[in-house]
């Protein structure tokens, strides 16, 4: 049954792929993207019998792009598909982008599905609230689901003001019974509960001012609507079964992000205040990045990063980082293959639980790229929210071809 679905998905993606190539031949449309093969290998035995030790998956992302009117209007379509072995929740299709853009001298208008990034810090992204995260895609939380939006940017001497209307709420996706990186009870996404329903659940609003002045880049934003990250409820159904249910609150969130760029030193700060029906929460990430460039004229750069993460919600915070230190190092060889390494560790100040993250990548034959990621979870005591990840240390390898 799952195999059947996988096969169907692969057929769909082939149609999509060749459809895109065909349409790109029709006119001056640009086609680019990548196809990849991923191996996700867990070091330890799974905690739950439905889970597996090793997962293979395939991925395709294509971008169809066209611009006209002297580059002031453009259209972009970015479909995405990952087909995974075992965990059917991880097999997913998404439209990352489907946008029409019009740029004028003092404004830019974007209509359609898009991704937006706000913020400056590296270890987490507090301020960045527009898109739902694609949590089944990668444990690092950097991937996002496309969000339908109307976005008008007003461009002034004193900064850019972005206005957003965000119709269409996208619930978070979770690893299924057969997937790793999940609590004892797999999250029952289909039973999700909300503060608001109907139109009010579906539509969110946001505004952001961003500006650069000399060494300083800053942004101030506000979001009103259904939160992208839920809290979780344990509920007993009539049948007596216990379910872990995501509960999406209606929130007002104000965010601030500032970066100072002082020669080789970057100072970064993000802070949010978030008000829901049940609480007012404050969270902040502050840190620095210092880079030694072109060490001994070798072309090699080594960067040192450190950030402190605080969240007043403590162990109920949607992220696992409520009072943690992050330290890391970035290595860039700046060679023809663009070899890079990022290694870091997040340490919980109270429990001492550690999360190690190592990411490396290198290009081959100009069009291929190999990435390896290693993630180790260690030392989380039973009361720590990261305790459920104790057996889920893993390696993720992906080989991709870029066209």
């Amino acid at each position: 049954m799952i195999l059947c679905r996988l096969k169907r998905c692969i057929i769909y993606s082939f149609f999509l792929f060749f459809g895109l190539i065909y349409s790109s031949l029709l006119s001056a449309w640009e086609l680019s993207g990548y196809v990849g093969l991923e191996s996700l290998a867990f070091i330890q035995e799974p905690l739950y019998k439905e889970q597996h030790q090793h997962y293979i998956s395939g991925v395709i992302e294509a971008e169809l792009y066209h611009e006209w009117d002297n580059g002031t209007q453009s259209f972009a379509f970015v479909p995405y598909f990952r087909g995974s072995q075992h965990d059917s929740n991880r097999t997913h299709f998404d439209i990352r982008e489907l946008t029409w853009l019009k740029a004028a001298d003092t404004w830019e208008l974007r209509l359609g599905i898009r991704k937006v990034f706000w913020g400056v810090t590296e270890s987490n992204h507090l301020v960045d609230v527009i898109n739902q995260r694609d949590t089944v895609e990668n444990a690092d939380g950097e991937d996002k689901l496309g969000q339908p939006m109307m976005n008008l940017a007003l461009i002034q001497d004193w900064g850019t003001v972005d206005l957003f209307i965000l119709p269409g709420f996208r619930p978070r996706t979770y690893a299924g019974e057969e997937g790793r990186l999940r609590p004892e009870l797999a999250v029952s996404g289909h039973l999700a509960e909300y503060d608001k329903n109907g139109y009010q659940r579906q539509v969110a609003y946001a505004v952001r001012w961003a500006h650069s002045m000399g060494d300083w880049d800053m942004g101030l934003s506000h979001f009103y609507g259904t939160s992208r990250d839920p809290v979780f409820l344990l509920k007993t159904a009539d049948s007596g079964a216990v379910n872990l249910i995501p509960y999406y609150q209606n929130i007002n969130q104000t965010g601030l992000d500032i970066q100072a760029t002082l020669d080789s030193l970057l100072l970064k700060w993000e802070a949010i205040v978030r008000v829901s029906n049940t609480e007012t929460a404050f969270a902040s990430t502050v840190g620095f990045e210092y880079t030694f460039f072109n060490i001994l004229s070798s072309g090699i750069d080594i960067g040192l990063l450190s950030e402190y993460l605080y969240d007043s919600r403590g162990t109920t915070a949607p992220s696992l980082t409520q009072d943690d230190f992050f330290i890391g190092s970035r290595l860039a060889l700046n060679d023809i293959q663009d070899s890079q390494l990022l290694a870091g560790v997040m340490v919980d100040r109270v429990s001492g639980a550690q999360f190690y993250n190592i990411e490396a990548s290198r290009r081959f034959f100009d069009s291929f790229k190999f990435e390896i990621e290693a993630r180790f979870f260690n030392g989380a005591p039973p009361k720590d929210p990261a305790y459920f990840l104790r057996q889920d240390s893993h390696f993720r390898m992906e080989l991709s071809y870029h066209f």
Partner: protein
Amino acid sequence: MSVNILNLGQISMKNVLLGLCLSMIASICMAELQTGIEIMQEVKFRNTGWKDMTADLEMVLTNNNGDEHRRKLAMKVLEIKDDGDKSLSVFNSPRDVKGTAFLSFTHALDADEQWLYLPALKRVKRISSSNKSGPFLGSEIAFEDLSSFELEKYKYTYLRDELLDSMDCFVIENEPQYEYSGYTRTIVWVDKARYIPIKIDYYDRKNTLLKTQTFNNYQQYLDKYWRADDLMMTNHVTGKSTQLFWHNYKFSNGLTARQFDKNSLKRSR
């Protein structure tokens, strides 16, 4: 007496003629002996007023074994009066970094302002501009080799005149005055007829000859501005080289600062 007078007169005439000749030679020499800064002022002056430029750049990176790797990018540059230029470069290949874009506001002596756009994350990142001497896209070109030429950036010393490829050239030594340069000095051969660079030798921090860049196939645009279509950078230490090919040069397209802001960076291709 008369003889004497005549003699005296002859002598004085001779002296006057000699003096005239000497002073003429001297003044010719003076004209030739422009100082380094004057020559580079003329270089800058003749390359001022093009307003903005768009072009496609192809880089061919060659290693010791003769293996070639190609990089393609599209560039836009906005000329800024009394300050460094603004530039926006968008990478087209290698394909895994396609769409990555780099916005730079250069300044003569102050730190440049630089932003990088990462298309996969849709993220604009302000980056440090202290990386002057590091390699650009794994090539033999350093970031500082690409930055806009401003007079205040160097201290100039005129060295000599020299014939290079049958072109009469000024040879000028430039000493970087900005921070974080990878060079103690560069030596530039400037064509006397057109006031354009023909060759640059780069000396590293230990003052040994590191790289040589040659400018080939100059074309003139708008009946005034000379641009080399083909540049060759050779690293004498590693034996690697990078060749730059410029295509589709277009000047004075009517671009404004609006095309060089963070909003434009986010939608650049």
